[in-house]
């Protein structure tokens, strides 16, 4: 199967790979997927007092499209409010990366990841 140039670009030069401290109150973590299904994404956002995402990091176990979806997502969420970030749709990611139908689930996973990260951050905020 041939990959799109956009997928190859993110795959070969993934942006924002890494890990923040889970326990930091500024950090929201979304971990989605399952090893048994062949992909697991961990997306983390660092949110400032104004609710703006200052930084994002990811690590992904999965195919090239899953890695590219999460790499792209970290670029997109930076500078957005958490509300805006939670609105990102998988179709936008799939379109930007020109994912074939068999890889759409990778973009769905990325959407789930950002939603989970925002939710985790909100939960921390309300628990604090």
């Amino acid at each position: 199967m041939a990959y799109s140039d956009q997928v190859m670009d993110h795959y070969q030069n993934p942006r924002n790979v890494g890990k923040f401290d889970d326990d930091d109150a500024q950090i929201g973590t979304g971990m989605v997927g399952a090893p048994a299904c062949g992909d697991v994404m961990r997306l983390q956002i660092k949110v400032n007092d104004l609710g703006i995402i200052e930084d994002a990091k990811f690590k992904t176990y999965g195919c090239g499209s899953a890695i590219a979806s999460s790499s792209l997502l970290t670029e997109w969420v930076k500078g957005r409010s958490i509300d805006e970030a939670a609105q990102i749709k998988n179709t936008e990611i799939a379109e930007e990366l020109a994912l074939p139908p068999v890889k759409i689930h990778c973009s769905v996973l990325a959407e789930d990841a950002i939603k989970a990260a925002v939710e985790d951050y909100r939960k921390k905020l309300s628990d604090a």
Partner: protein
Amino acid sequence: MKAPVYFDYAATTPVDPRVAQKMSECLMTEGNFGNPASRSHKFGWEAEEAVELARTQVAALLNCDPREIVWTSGATESDNLAIKGIAQFYKGKGKHIITSKIEHKAVLDTCRHLEREGFEVTYLEPGSDGLIRPEAVQSAIREDTTLVSIMHVNNEIGVVNDIERIGEVCRAAKVFYHVDAAQSAGKIPIDLSTLKVDLMALSGHKMYGPKGVGVLFVRRKPRVRLEAQMHGGGHERGMRSGTLATHQLVGMGEACRIAQAEMSSEAARTLALRERLWQGLNDMEEVYVNGDLNAHVPGIINISFNYVEGESLIMSLPELAVSSGSACTSASLEPSYVLRALGMNDELAHSSLRFSVGRFTTEEDVDAAIAQVRRAVEKLRELSPLWDMYKDGVDLDSIEWAAH
């Protein structure tokens, strides 16, 4: 981009130049182009002679009678002919078939088809070493069993089943035994004069012959009868009609001749290459061989790189032609059914690559592969949250994953 190095000899092999030469002599006006079934002129007689020589060469490799060789279009057709042919011919005696969960799709799908026609099929589980136990075959045989189909060498992991003992079990129970030998013929010795095997499927293109040709061995003593699946001019003693493709059969014959003449030296060389590859990788953390290496065909090794997903690993290896799972199933996103049948967890099954080396693989190729695989695995582990968790001592099985 320069062509990747070929590590997929189990999917197919290039045609040996000696084979291609013989084939090219059977195509054009000045060559041996006649129809082997033409009885009225020299063109037909010469083509028939070439086909019969090829048949003798195949028979010599397997140590059987040339009259026991039926030409087909490949191992898939041979498997179909053997399994459907026996099942249908002997359905008055019984409608039960035994096979294993790690057969090639040509066997599994044929069995599924027969199930829809009212046959019953038992699918034996391999051990975690990938092998089918003769005892398991023994205990699955019933009064109404007519056929056992257990492969010689598994195409994904390369393990070698004990077809000698399985054959003895079948013969004692008066059940026919079919062996898919696509991955073993020409690679390891097969002696049909002693093996209690009734049918055996071979493929030309796995042994440096052309694609589109194979054979089915059908034993004469004790006699095995088949219901033909292809009807027509009654070629191949009525078992498989269709004009014989002289150049293809001559190619397969020559491929068998070479395989037989060079088997021991080639097996030693291929084994050394495979061992070199494994030696170059096995000091990495969390890297496992799938299937028992002590019962293995020389050219194939299947390795799991834990915490790295197979498809992305292949994507990181653009200069290597390897496969994750078998080529026949890798269009799907499912992990290999063979590895799952070994009882391996899904992550490890998702993390596996099959490397297969052969006649034209060099030590330099292997060294290049080692360097590239190491680099790719390290890179992808840096990207892998599972690797992080492993390094942090988190038990992945303790986490409740949301399957999707």
